[in-house]
């Protein structure tokens, strides 16, 4: 058995064939079944399988692209469950983006943030206010709601406004460290929510607890976006942008300085890393993804109110990061996907199933014990189990491996005999 596994791990062809069969079977069953959550989940799981193959990165991206852009929406579109699948997939995408943003702050820069949902709220309200008649209340000029075409600009706007909020919150908050930082960010997250909840007087900006309803749907080439199956593509594009950005930053000067600050602030500073700037950058970049997704969320729900942005949401995103693996991009993606699906699909399905059983009289379960009501307890248990048995998360963070051979060659090529005297970086740039 072990030998077979070893062989499989080395044989790309076998991996390819297995993956193809797996994707084929699951997508076919999703296509044929009227409503099969299992098939849907199994097809999504093919991406995990793909992650563990030894294909080149580009190949993996292409296959994942094909699955997500064509295969998943197409095979799901055949049954009644289509929109509900796409709704789940869209939410998964939104949560992954947010978790990746929080991962920059918590996982890479080591700043525990318990109020992260605030930036999502900022994005959602940015669009919500101007895409409803709400803005007429306080804007002296212009006519609101803005048209659905403006949505695309608002994605960018949400990104920048959230980043700005990240910096504004960061400046006072980053004076404190460690546990204190967690408490202060928690406070700020709540303050933002409460402000949105109360900003209907004296000037009605957010419409308070009533929320903003009938948000204008996005519009592109004369087509209105109202179905989850349409938002799915918007989310997919932003998600891919997020993942690329995160990976780029992780393996750059900035990513290294985040990790350096996390590992040892004093040493990082002594090596020339500006502490405040580095932390603010983590806050701003992390927040920007949430801001974008907030805009999408507002448009998708067509309704924004403060109850979507509670502390529990902040904690849920944090749990995604911790379960997935702090600092690990693939881990956080998996963590967010698993948590969202668990929350939206598995728990509700199990509840439905138990309900059916109890109505048919097979068993009787009191309503208070239904799994969907025990969401927090289940998440809590999961966290405890992970803390005990797998503290680094599902896919622990791994450092990039540098190619020793190439560096050896580079080192000989660049240096002649020994190391150049001053800064060889500048020298290398001249060449």
């Amino acid at each position: 058995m072990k030998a077979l596994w070893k062989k499989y791990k080395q044989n790309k062809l076998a991996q390819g064939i297995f993956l193809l069969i797996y994707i084929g079977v699951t997508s076919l069953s999703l296509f044929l079944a009227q409503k099969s959550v299992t098939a849907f989940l199994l097809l999504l799981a093919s991406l995990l399988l793909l992650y563990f193959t030894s294909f080149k990165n580009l190949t993996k991206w292409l296959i994942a692209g094909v699955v997500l852009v064509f295969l998943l929406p197409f095979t799901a579109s055949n049954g009644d469950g289509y929109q509900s699948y796409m709704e789940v997939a869209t939410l998964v995408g939104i949560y992954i983006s947010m978790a990746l943003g929080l991962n920059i702050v918590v996982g890479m820069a080591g700043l525990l943030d318990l109020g992260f949902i605030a930036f999502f709220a900022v994005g959602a309200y940015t669009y919500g206010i101007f895409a409803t008649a709400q803005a007429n209340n306080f804007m002296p000029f212009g006519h609101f709601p803005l048209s659905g075409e403006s949505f695309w600009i608002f994605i960018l706007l949400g990104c920048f406004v959230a980043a700005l909020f990240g910096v504004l919150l960061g400046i006072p908050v980053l004076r404190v460290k460690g546990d204190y930082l967690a408490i202060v960010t928690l406070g700020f997250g709540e303050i933002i929510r409460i402000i949105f909840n109360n900003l209907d007087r004296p000037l009605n900006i957010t419409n308070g607890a009533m929320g903003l309803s009938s948000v204008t749907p996005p519009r592109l080439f004369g087509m209105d976006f109202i179905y989850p199956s349409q938002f799915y593509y918007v989310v997919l594009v932003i998600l891919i942008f997020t993942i690329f950005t995160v990976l780029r930053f992780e393996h750059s000067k900035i990513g290294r300085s985040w990790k350096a600050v996390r590992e040892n602030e004093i040493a990082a500073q002594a090596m020339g890393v500006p502490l405040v700037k580095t932390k603010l950058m983590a806050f701003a970049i992390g927040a920007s993804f949430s801001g974008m997704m907030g805009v999408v969320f507002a448009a998708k729900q067509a309704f924004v109110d403060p109850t979507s942005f509670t502390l529990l949401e902040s904690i849920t995103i944090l749990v995604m990061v911790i379960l997935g693996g702090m600092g690990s991009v693939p881990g956080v993606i998996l963590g967010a996907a698993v948590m969202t699906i668990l929350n939206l699909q598995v728990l509700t399905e199990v509840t439905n199933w138990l309900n059916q059983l109890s109505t048919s009289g097979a068993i009787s379960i009191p309503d208070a014990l239904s799994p969907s009501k025990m969401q927090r307890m289940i998440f809590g248990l999961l966290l405890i189990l992970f803390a005990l048995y797998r503290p680094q998360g599902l896919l622990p963070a791994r450092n990039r491996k540098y190619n020793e051979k190439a560096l050896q060659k580079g080192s000989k090529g660049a240096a002649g005999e020994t190391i150049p005297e001053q800064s060889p970086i500048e020298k290398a740039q001249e060449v």
Partner: protein
Amino acid sequence: MSILEVQNLSKKFGGLTANQDVSMTVEKNSITAVIGPNGAGKTTFFNMITGVYQPTSGIILLENEKLNGLKPHVVCQRGISRTFQNIRLFNEMTVLENVMVGMHTHLKAGLFGILFNLPTTRKEELATEIKAYQLLEYVGLDSFLNEKACNLSYGAQRRLEIARAIAASPKILLLDEPAAGMNPKETKELTQLIKKMRDEFNLTVLLIEHDMKLVMEISEQIFVLDHGEKIAEGKPEDIRNNPKVIEAYLGSGAVHAG
């Protein structure tokens, strides 16, 4: 020619005076040692130079420019980098990345360049990797490049800290007890390394050390602190025979007895 000048530097922690009116001039390209019994205020002195602590009074001049009030990262940009008495590596990062962080101040990549992976950014990253690798070769850690820093042996961690500090291309390198915890063989290699670095990188080395053999062997100038005050300065042979120094180390009475 002097490169670093410190005038009447004092540091008080509440009622405790850690440094009292310390003045010294460090010659360019020299290897200078700061010695003294435990708690004499040596590390505090380094911390003031590197901006970790702000002096209570006194001034610090690097090539005649004041360093007082600057943040540690600015001091690093000005050309002073250091190692720490209690090793401070980026433990979860690889050995190579530790050194790459050392080059932070010299990297020009901006947000835009990183996001779009512009050719200049890519080139700079590659050059950074190669220089970091060269520095690892220099301190003999090249075979550990992908190892986590915390997995290195104690002596290797000390050398990695030196490589990281050198990566900032400093004018002055401050070493806080670089030989602490090393065996005699490692200490000997370290002595060679410090000399070699000084010559090849055109460095000025200022070091704190308790290993008197090492200190006497490599330093050209020695400053002695005791109870926060400078009690002596001079060449190794002068310091060795200075009664005040012997008294500080061995307690009063030792001079007469010996």
